């Protein structure tokens, strides 16, 4: 019965990675340059889940298979005075919709809570079974 706790831990880890990705998106919602200073905006990232625990995919659980880049097009805003404006005066902004990121963050935190509840219940059931011989 202890592998239920391993399963729960894999769920917590996966949801935590998802939260980190969403936090990265929110923080970089207006970043018009990349790390090298070129005028290439931050591209939205999202996680791809797959069944199976990380490290032993045949055990039941969930893992982050990949952190993918969202290939949808960048937003363009007309700001002629911006240092990163192109020849027509348009600046490319990251393809991040803050409202959607907030909703995703809420869902990830609820899933995290649900996982914590499951682990609590697993511990309770194990303790109840222990009381058989007490």
């Amino acid at each position, binding site marked *: *019965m202890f*592998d*239920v706790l391993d*399963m*729960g831990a*894999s*769920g917590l880890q*996966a*949801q935590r990675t*998802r939260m980190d990705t969403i936090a990265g998106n929110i923080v970089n919602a207006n970043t018009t340059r990349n790390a090298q200073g070129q005028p290439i905006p931050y591209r939205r990232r999202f996680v*791809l*889940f*797959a*069944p199976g625990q990380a490290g032993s995919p045949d055990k*039941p*659980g*969930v893992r982050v298979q990949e952190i993918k880049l969202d290939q949808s097009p960048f937003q363009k805003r007309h700001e002629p005075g911006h240092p990163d404006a192109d020849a027509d005066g348009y600046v490319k902004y990251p393809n991040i919709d803050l409202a959607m990121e907030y909703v995703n963050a809420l*869902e990830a935190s*609820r*899933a995290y809570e*649900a*996982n914590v*509840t*499951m682990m609590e*219940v*697993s511990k*309770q*059931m194990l303790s*109840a*079974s222990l*009381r*058989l011989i007490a």
Partner: protein
Amino acid sequence: MFIERLLNQGNAPLLERTLEFTAARHKLIAENVVNVDTPGYQQKDMSLEKFQAMLRNRVEARRNAAPGAASFADIDGELENPERGILFHDGNNRSMEQLMSDQAKNALLHNMVVELLKKQYSAMENALRERVT
């Protein structure tokens, strides 16, 4: 032989099988919760009604058979993929509310059966000890 019959009298084997069922079902529900965001994942479950129907049939058979002949050891829950819930665009038919309520009911049944089993064993122990604890 007679010790085995002593330990298997009454409802102890029924309760033991139910405990194994609730433990196995808890693992399935936990796996469903953990995979609530995984695309293409099919929810797994074990039906409590079917399991209890199997138990009921075996109890009826035991009533008509010789004492100690009918055993409960082979009754197990069956894995199935229930069709309930909405199929989301990522191919997952999750329902968090259903999972949480299933988990609560399962845990309550498990704890209750543990208490009942404890009571039976303690009654046997009292009889053996010949003194009230």
